[in-house]
């Protein structure tokens, strides 16, 4: 796959279709791939990497890149293409300046999961079908690829690439996904248990803002959390309010626009399952206002900018089953 992507990048640069290519290069470690802009064939030859660790969703970078001179080529995986289309819908990306190469995807890898299976000091990971060969300082281990997938890939919602100029690999289908199972599990708990669960998760938050910065839906140029007077700009000591407020508002601001690309949880250095908050919104929207997938098309109105005369009342939250708080 890397070879085909590289060839495509070189071809697009050499025939002047684009002046820049947005892809991935190695960061501090081989599994720590970071988004990068390549301007010359030499750079592509030397640095371009596509592997199981190319998790980063490149669509958000197009907001800036599409406003620069010349065309930019970008590689989008199926879930990234949803974010891309959602941004197009919000008029955030100039479509004519972007050349989209859709790439089929069979799930991406999570280094944490590889480590959790007892692999310390990993030096290389090679894929061969459904098996991963993990080279470590202490020897070589074989793992099942399915056990090492990112959370979002383990419950993949769609392999369909919704917006592209050209495809590498096969076009996929929307999948039956059980991605709401964990949300439903939490819903079945008592409010006390849920509160304890979220306290434990959110108390680890260090307010690095990585979830906000990486989110393709979170693309305001001025963010409400950058306001010094907000009182919740940093991590407060011995107080839980700031964490709750940040995560409630972060999730609410992308409600109805979140495509569930799962980047927030992937980048969280504290491994907080942030996608659960977004998924709760998606699940509620699906239940209350009809099934909606952000980014799936260009015309459907987002549920929060739309209404019907006979929407359910907010009291539905109180009337729903489960233990009362």
């Amino acid at each position: 796959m890397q070879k085909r992507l590289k060839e495509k990048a070189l071809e697009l640069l050499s025939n002047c279709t684009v002046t820049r290519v947005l892809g991935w290069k190695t960061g501090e470690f081989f599994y720590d791939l970071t988004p990068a802009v390549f301007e010359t064939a030499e750079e592509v030859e030397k640095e371009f990497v596509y592997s199981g660790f190319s998790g980063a969703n490149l669509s958000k970078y197009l907001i800036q890149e599409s406003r620069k001179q010349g065309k930019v080529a970008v590689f989008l995986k199926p879930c990234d293409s949803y974010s891309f289309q959602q941004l197009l819908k919000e008029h955030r990306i100039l479509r004519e300046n972007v050349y989209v190469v859709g790439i089929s995807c069979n799930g991406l890898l999570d280094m944490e999961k590889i480590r959790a299976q007892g692999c310390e000091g990993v030096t290389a990971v090679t894929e061969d079908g459904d098996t991963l060969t993990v080279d470590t300082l202490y020897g070589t281990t074989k793992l099942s690829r399915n056990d090492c997938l990112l959370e979002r890939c383990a419950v993949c919602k769609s392999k369909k690439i919704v917006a592209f100029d050209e495809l590498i690999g096969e076009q996929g289908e929307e999948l039956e996904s059980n991605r709401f199972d964990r949300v439903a599990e939490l819903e079945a708990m008592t409010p006390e248990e849920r509160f304890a669960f979220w306290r434990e998760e959110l108390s680890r938050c260090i307010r690095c803002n990585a979830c906000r910065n990486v989110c393709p839906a979170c693309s305001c140029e001025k963010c409400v959390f950058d306001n010094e007077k907000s009182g919740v700009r940093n991590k407060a000591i011995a107080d839980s309010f700031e964490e709750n407020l940040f995560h409630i508002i972060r999730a609410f601001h992308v409600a109805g626009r979140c495509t569930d690309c799962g980047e927030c949880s992937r980048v969280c250095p504290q491994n907080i399952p942030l996608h659960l908050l977004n998924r709760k919104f998606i699940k509620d929207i699906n239940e209350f206002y009809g099934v909606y997938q952000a980014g799936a098309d260009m015309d459907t109105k987002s549920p929060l900018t739309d209404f019907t005369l006979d929407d359910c009342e907010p009291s539905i939250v109180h009337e729903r089953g489960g233990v009362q708080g």
Partner: protein
Amino acid sequence: MSVTENFKPTIVAFCCNWCSYAGADLSGTNRLQYPANVKIIRIPCSCRLNPMFVLRAFQKGADGVILCGCHPGDCHYTTGNYYARRRMTLLFSLLDFMGIERGRTRVEWVSAAEGAKFAATMNEFTETIMKLGPNRRLEDLRCRKD
């Protein structure tokens, strides 16, 4: 969570300028009684209620937050309360998901002619909050007064 005997809840009622604020006024001119714990904040339309306002109210010491607006269909701006309805449904649902007591948040549609409904709603809501006790799960310790 123990309910102290002299617990006086603070309740923030966001009232839309065109219906509920006038409804509150009517309940006053009709000499209907509702608890003094209810602090009314006037907003131009129920749709003005930013979810941040709700959380801020809790931060600054509210034990319950209620939004009152025109009945669906009667919005002064035609559609504002329809949007507010969707937003608040989702917000309350998320708060519930995070373990915040469901009873602390509420939306009620009160028209300018429903002074009695306003007073009754406030009495009822205050009672609910009395039962729930002080807001501890969504409070800011830095803002705590007692």
